[in-house]
């Protein structure tokens, strides 16, 4: 046994090659709050990695005439004035590979789930220029989130950047988790980037994903609330570099940044410590670029460049519903649409609390499947009219028949769009339910029975309208034959339901 160890060590030592080269070194002038000011290091590049004597890694952020501002990625308590800092010549990079799937890593790609080390094939720099115009393709493939309100009214396509925005406790993370859970069997890799979240929340989320079998295709990147702001700052870039690795393999990736408000706050903290001039709300002048360069890396590549895609769901937390604050307006303008969640709706029991009026998807409609477009085409307008009429109807009781009909339909639409957490609905099932709704089959069902009707209808139609389901799965649209079968199934089920 001991011979074997000696032999193995001997072989390793034989493999070791000594490299002697001139190294650039500097000295720590001062250290404070995760920032080190370093002299020397004359040829230092922006975002270059440096190493401290205790093995800690830093990244050059401020390059000044005689010194450099370094953010320390880790424990800075042991770094002291006069310590020697070595430049590595490499831009900050993260290990990437298929072995990351199912793992929870920190902002520099090290495992934090206690499942042992991760062997990665190669490394990707965390800061990369986004794909160029010639390598891109327009968004035309849907991302099925399994959330009826989104898939029907605010559809999201592969390669799109759709913002989830709302106050605290309105179900933003729940929406993102539902979207991840629904990707099972959809040939999608998911990357969840947690920024400044409590470790208990992350653990709960990980368990939920494990229970739903979603960790088989998910990577979690976490910079927790107790980690330094430097780690919070780089976590989304690490996440998107991991996503880019999978995109380069031709795979579709869904990335969630939870949340970019905390990311902006972390960047503000670093910038103020580096003495960069503060601007509006004390954020530095390049806070727009901070998010635009991150979100621009979400794209859909054409076949020549592998055909993969990155769909991004950035999350922004607003204060008292104020979407006109600095960071929300910035991210709204960068993304291709937003899903706006409202506290009022949440407490009224309308969950997910999506405000259909304020939510929009600028490019997603071309990614929606034909069948869904057909059934959900008028839904947004119906809901908007319902909301207007609902306010109007409170003033008088004498309403004409068509207004009454619209109000009743509206109530049922709202009921249909309600959905409990962690229960994504398949696209074909959504089509069936919306078909029944817009064709008026639900008009004479009591509002409080709508949920039961919906559930029963899905079960019944799956057995009785097989042609319809087959057509949706194959050609994304029904034919007359399939439609006839579905109408019969709905009519039959309704008759038995009302008995």
């Amino acid at each position, binding site marked *: 046994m001991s011979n074997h160890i000696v032999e193995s060590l001997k072989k*390793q030592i034989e493999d070791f090659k000594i490299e002697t080269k001139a190294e*650039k070194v*500097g000295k720590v002038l001062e250290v404070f709050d995760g920032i080190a000011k370093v002299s*020397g*290091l004359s040829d230092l590049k922006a975002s270059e990695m440096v190493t401290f004597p205790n093995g800690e890694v830093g990244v050059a952020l401020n390059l000044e005439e005689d010194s450099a501002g370094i953010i320390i990625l880790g424990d800075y308590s042991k770094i002291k004035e006069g310590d020697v800092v070595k430049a590595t010549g490499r831009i900050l990079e993260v290990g990437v590979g298929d072995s990351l799937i199912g793992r929870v890593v920190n902002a520099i790609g090290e495992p934090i789930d206690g499942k042992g080390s991760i062997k990665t094939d190669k490394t990707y720099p965390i800061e990369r220029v986004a794909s160029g115009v010639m390598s891109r393709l327009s968004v035309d493939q849907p991302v099925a989130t399994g959330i009826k309100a989104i898939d029907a009214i605010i559809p999201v396509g592969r390669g799109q950047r759709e913002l989830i925005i709302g106050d605290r406790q309105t179900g933003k993370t729940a929406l993102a988790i539902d979207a991840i859970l629904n990707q099972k069997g959809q040939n999608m890799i998911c990357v969840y980037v947690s920024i400044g979240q409590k470790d208990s929340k992350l653990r709960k989320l990980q368990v939920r994903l494990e229970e739903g079998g979603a960790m088989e295709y998910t990577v979690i990147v976490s910079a927790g609330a107790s980690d330094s702001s430097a780690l919070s700052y780089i976590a989304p870039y690490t996440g998107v570099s991991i996503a880019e690795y999978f995109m380069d393999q031709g795979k579709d990736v869904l990335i969630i940044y939870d949340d970019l408000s905390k990311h902006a706050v972390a960047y503000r903290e670093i910038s103020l410590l580096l003495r960069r001039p503060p601007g509006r709300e004390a954020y530095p002048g390049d806070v727009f670029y901070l998010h635009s360069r991150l979100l621009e890396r979400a794209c859909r590549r054409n076949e020549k460049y592998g055909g993969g895609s990155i769909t991004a769901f950035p999350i922004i937390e607003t204060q008292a519903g104020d979407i006109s604050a600095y960071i929300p307006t910035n991210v709204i303008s960068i993304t291709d649409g937003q899903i706006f969640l409202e506290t009022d709706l949440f407490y009224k029991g309308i969950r997910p609390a999506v405000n259909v009026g304020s939510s929009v998807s600028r490019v997603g409609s071309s990614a929606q499947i034909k069948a869904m477009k057909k059934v959900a085409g008028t839904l947004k307008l119906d809901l908007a009219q319902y909301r207007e009429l609902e306010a109007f109807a409170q003033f008088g009781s004498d309403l004409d028949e068509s207004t009454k009909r619209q109000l009743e339909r509206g109530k049922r639409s709202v009921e249909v769009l309600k959905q409990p957490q962690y229960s994504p609905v398949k696209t074909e099932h959504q089509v069936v339910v919306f078909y029944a709704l817009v064709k008026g089959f639900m008009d004479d069902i009591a509002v409080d029975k709508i949920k039961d009707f919906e559930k029963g209808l899905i079960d019944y139609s799956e057995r009785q309208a097989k042609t319809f389901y087959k057509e949706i799965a194959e050609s994304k649209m029904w034919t007359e034959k399939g439609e006839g079968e579905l109408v019969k199934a709905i009519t039959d089920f309704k008759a038995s339901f009302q008995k």
Partner: protein
Amino acid sequence: MAKISPKIIAEAIYRAGEGKHKAELDVVLKNAVKLLVSKKMLSSSDLVLQSLQDIIDKKNKVVRAKISSAKHLKKEDKDQLEEEIKKKYHAESVESVFFENEELLGGVRIEVKDEVIDTTYRNRLNQLEKFLITSK
């Protein structure tokens, strides 16, 4: 107005004193001290002097090297090292300071400005340690 750095003051002193004789140079230096006092930068005088030294070295193509070794180096070895440094940094002369440090075990460590060439056994052992840990 942008903050005045010690490097800028050193550059100004060098330009003001360029080609001047001793008496005139004394006046320049006195004025420089007055400037440091008026700008409340007297505490940075070490940095100013260091910058001034760097500027003069650059103009005269002088390289300053710190050479550490485990044992005392022979004169031939020292000369050879200085010759190598001259070649590498395209210098006309080398001002070296030699140190002895037993902890280095063997080899030499050369420091020139912010560059280090470390061929000591201590460094090699450290590299080997890192290699064995990471290649597990």
